[in-house]
């Protein structure tokens, strides 16, 4: 799985960090998403999929192999 984020449109809701803190973080100053791991290991795929689903700005994109 490859993860990408469109940080320009992130609304800093932090839902992704709550679900998959190994993969996402937020910038300290404005809360905008920071991608920590572009190709997370398989046990993280479910929480990452869930993040993509609930992200209120729909800016988490997944390419599943």
């Amino acid at each position, binding site marked *: 799985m490859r993860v990408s984020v469109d940080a320009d449109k992130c*609304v*800093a*809701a*932090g*839902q992704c*960090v*709550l679900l998959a803190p190994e993969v996402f973080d*937020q*910038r*300290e*100053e*404005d*809360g905008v998403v920071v991608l920590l791991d572009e190709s997370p290991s398989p046990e993280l795929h479910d929480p990452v*999929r*869930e993040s993509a*689903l*609930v*992200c*209120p*700005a*729909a800016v988490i994109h997944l390419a599943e192999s």
Partner: protein
Amino acid sequence: MKRVVVVGASTGGLATAEALRRAGHEGPITLVGAEPAMPYDRPPLSKQVLTGQRGPNELALRSSAEIDALDLDLRLGVPAAGLDIGRREVLLEDGIRLDYDELVVATGVRARRLPGTGGIAGVHTLRTVSDALALKERLRPGRRLVVVGAGFVGAEVAAAANGLGVHVTLLESAPVPLAAAVGDATGRFLAAMHRDHGVGIRADVRVTEIVQDGGQVSGVRLEDGSVLPADDVLVAIGSVANTEWLADSGLAVQEGLVCDEYSAAGPGVYGVGDVARWHNPLFDVTMRIEHRTNAAEQGLAVARNLLCPETRRPFAPVPYFWSDQYDVKVQAYGYLRDHDEALVLDNTTSASGRLLVIYRKADRLVGVLAVGASPKVLRAWRALIAGSTAWTAVLNRTIAA
């Protein structure tokens, strides 16, 4: 294989459909939506769409390729008109009947209107993309906009219009604007911010009439008889749940579709998003939440419960919302409505300053609202709310910190 019908093709409905597929559901899913547009996002309508930072074509919740991949029977532009829960049948307005094994109700809410203002040009409400485009069209420098109702939608529009050079007046019937759900301290902070930007704020006033001149709005009459001149009026006085189509179904409707802690409303029927009034066991409150993230999260939870009823789980989230006004982002976790106390922990009153307020209900912490707080600080508060932390424990911590 279960046949699932989802009524309402916006955030909640689409999230449910998507979560069903992600969970491996291969049976038919029909997604019915009253609006003809492909599912789109609403929060930008009172923000970037008005300021022109985002066009109407940049609001799609998912790309058409992503939607195609869900393999849905997509029926847009046709509202559901009735429901027979005995026969498990949804009746569409065009006469078509859809059989289902499981039904998801995600019909959301619409903007409440002022009675008798229907045909007057220049009177707006804001819920759909066409509402937003109609309003945007009118926001020109030097024009006068009166916003009736200082809730979050009204306040966001006031901020966006102010930035476009429009003369804005924000009217609120309560003594403190913006305070309805979030308390007086937050209300005062936000009101001060609007004033600093030059928005006129009138609290404790009631509108008695929309004044018109040949079918075009010319002002707003207040209780004391005075008329506030206006080129446009935005009515932002809350919302009404879209439940009329359920009226004869036998399901319990009470300003929303009444659901249990599993988001179930009846045999084979679930509620999702703004329309659902469900029991949240984390707060032991039956709540209806009009927040963007809640609609998606509830869609996910319902998809799981619907597919695996044996392992169903209560939907017990800490609600979250944000609001963008000027260069400030307001963020809140928890259930702030009906709080008993709002305690201000940090407050700088300058424009775009900082604010941190925590909320108590009975003897526990139920919410936090912040402006300018770091994500880590907010998440720590969220964890305390999720843990049903006692208020006294919170106070001890705060003093110790």
